């Protein structure tokens, strides 16, 4: 693949040969630009820079989630609807290690790795039962797991403190670097910079994996699982690696999230989180690492800032109230934040109908999703995933 891109010359050539450097540069530029943009009108009217930065840090969590889910859905083509389970596992792992609930007090930074590892293990455990299932069933089973995990956290009171969750989780500690000891609740900057650093590392690693033997195996798996197996790819290992790598990213996000909020409760990890992550991946561009990251950031900001502003705008229009029996429709009183999931749903449906490859698709995905039926018929593999001894008469 690098042979092909270097022919495009110039910047592309540079960036593919020095990929990690380019990634770091881009991230630095974006990291500096975002807080600056928040000072420019009209954005400056929406909130203080501190609010914005805090919002970016929160957006960062979702960027990580989208990046991780992209591995499962985008790279390996496995529709995982229960991704929030791994997020929860990462969060609770840190909660156990650094709160009054267990009395332990392990520092944040090593726990990032531990949380990622624990989540990776669960990625294998929850992925294993799905290995032989086809698309729809795979989705439903992962959805089921996505429901079971928070329910377990909710009901196993003795071990998880049930609905009240675990509070008083320790903040990260920079050990005196930059003059920072504890991160604290009032200053969003350390969190912002931490999540940016985590995202940078994750993105670099993901690009490297994509451009490796494993990355090719994922593409082959997505294209034609049977042929992939017949070419020597251990499809089970390939799928489990997708699940565990995706899960470990969610684990990272979970550890960070638990530290930032200092509280974890089961209801923070419901289907809406899995759905939001999926929406970000699909809308951003399945399979495209930076596309998914950009999509996640845009969607998060649209949702948290955009909807708020839309609400004020509509209120200013003074639309009269409509009554239909027991239902009253008062547009002026609408809190558009409540509509976010409605809009996600609408956006997903429209996207699938119009541009299924997402806003920033990878070239390969666009090719895959716009295959014309004629080409398909000539050379498409047998659609029944399974025993090829059923194919052909001989």
């Amino acid at each position, binding site marked *: 693949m690098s042979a092909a891109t270097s022919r495009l010359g110039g910047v592309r050539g540079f960036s593919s040969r020095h990929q990690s450097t380019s990634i770091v540069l881009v991230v630095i530029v974006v990291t500096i630009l975002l807080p600056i943009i928040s000072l420019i009108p009209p954005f400056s009217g929406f909130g203080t820079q501190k609010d914005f930065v805090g919002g970016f840090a929160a957006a960062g969590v979702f960027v990580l989630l989208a990046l991780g889910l992209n591995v499962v859905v985008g790279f390996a083509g496995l529709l995982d609807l229960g991704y929030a389970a791994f997020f929860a596992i990462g969060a609770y792992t840190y909660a156990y290690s650094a709160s009054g609930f267990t009395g332990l007090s392990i520092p944040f930074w090593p726990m990032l790795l531990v949380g990622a590892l624990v989540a990776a293990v669960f990625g294998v455990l929850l992925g294993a039962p799905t290995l032989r299932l086809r698309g729809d069933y795979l989705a439903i089973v992962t959805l089921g797991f996505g429901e079971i995990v928070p*329910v377990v956290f909710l009901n196993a009171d003795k071990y998880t403190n049930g609905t009240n969750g675990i509070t008083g989780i320790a903040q990260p500690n920079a050990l005196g670097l930059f003059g920072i000891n504890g991160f604290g609740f009032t200053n969003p900057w350390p969190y912002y910079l931490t999540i940016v650093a985590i995202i940078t590392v994750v993105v670099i690693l993901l690009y490297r994996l994509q451009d490796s033997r494993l990355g090719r195996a994922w593409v082959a798996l997505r294209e034609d699982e049977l042929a992939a197996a017949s070419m020597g790819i251990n499809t089970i290992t390939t799928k489990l690696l997708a699940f565990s790598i995706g899960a470990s990213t969610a684990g990272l996000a979970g550890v960070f999230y638990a530290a930032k909020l200092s509280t974890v409760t089961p209801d923070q990890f419901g289907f809406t989180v899995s759905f939001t992550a999926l929406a970000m991946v699909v809308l951003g561009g399945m399979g495209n690492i930076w596309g998914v990251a950009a999509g996640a950031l845009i969607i998060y900001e649209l949702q948290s800032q955009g909807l708020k502003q839309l609400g004020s705008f509509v209120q200013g229009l003074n639309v009269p109230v409509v009554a239909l029996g027991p239902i009253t429709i008062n547009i002026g009183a609408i809190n558009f934040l409540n509509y976010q999931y409605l809009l996600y749903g609408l956006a997903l449906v429209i996207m699938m109908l119009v541009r299924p490859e997402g806003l920033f698709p990878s070239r390969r995905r666009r090719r895959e999703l716009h295959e014309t039926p004629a080409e398909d018929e000539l050379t498409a593999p047998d659609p029944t995933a399974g025993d090829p001894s059923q194919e052909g008469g001989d």
Partner: protein
Amino acid sequence: MPLAILISLAVAYGLMVIGAGPQAQEQFINALTIGAIYALIALGYTMVYGIIELINFAHGEIFMVGSFVCWWLLTTLGFSGAIQDPVLLIEVLVLAFTVSMVTMGVVGVIIERLAYRPLRNAPRLAPLITAIGVSFILQNLVFVMISNSIVTVPQIIPNPLIQIGPISIREINLFVIVLALVLMAALHLFIQRTRLGRAMRSTAIDRDAAQIMGVNINSTIALTFFIGSALAGAAGVVQGLYFGVTVFNIGFQAGLKAFTAAVLGGIGNTTGAAIGGFVIGFIEVLASVFGVGRWSEAAVFTTLVLVLIFRPTGILGQQLADRA
């Protein structure tokens, strides 16, 4: 198979006795009622999957909206409690069911036409994601436009106990169970004995062959959605009348459980879906009877996972379609 059903029912009753003692009969009937609701929803799932191999995620929300339609109708008409006059009661019930079933049927057809039909030849991921999107749209429409919390549905069916031999059963339970059985029987007859039903079956088995034989695929699929959604609408009315409440997010859970029921019975198999629905109903009630009610969700999902891993064709295997 009837023998197997009788034995299972006997076993279930025995478990009820162990767990609930004197309330065994009441809980048994309760399980049958809840099972009936799941069965009606499961039928829609299994029919749609049988014919276009799509898990209609939005189906659970159809059930939920159906219950809201019932709520809206009864509230607008001004009812608030039990209707004692049998004639009026029957009229209102007929109206409620008809309105809800027809409305949801139409909604189902519209969804299919707008969101699923354009993607019929797209890679599997696309219609699946669209279905989730539609599910969220429906759920949140109700959330923002009607209510974000529990809504009370007028309980218009009076509550007295009826004695049938050794069995004492409430009017409402009797009504629900009988209604569900009647609807399922009607569906079965329709699928097996009518021309349209034959069209549905043949489309499910081999779409291209059916088309060549003159079956209008688009209409057949639309009809399938209509019937499935209508049944879910009926389930919604039952939910409102039986539980007296409904809320915007019951569709998600109920949908998942009903899907489990459909898979348990054999996806594509309508008899299986019905049986599966009752099984899930019993699992749920038994769980609460034995004091582990809050784990019933987990139990149902675990059932789903286990069935899909070890016996993906379900208890009864394929019927409507011959594909796994």
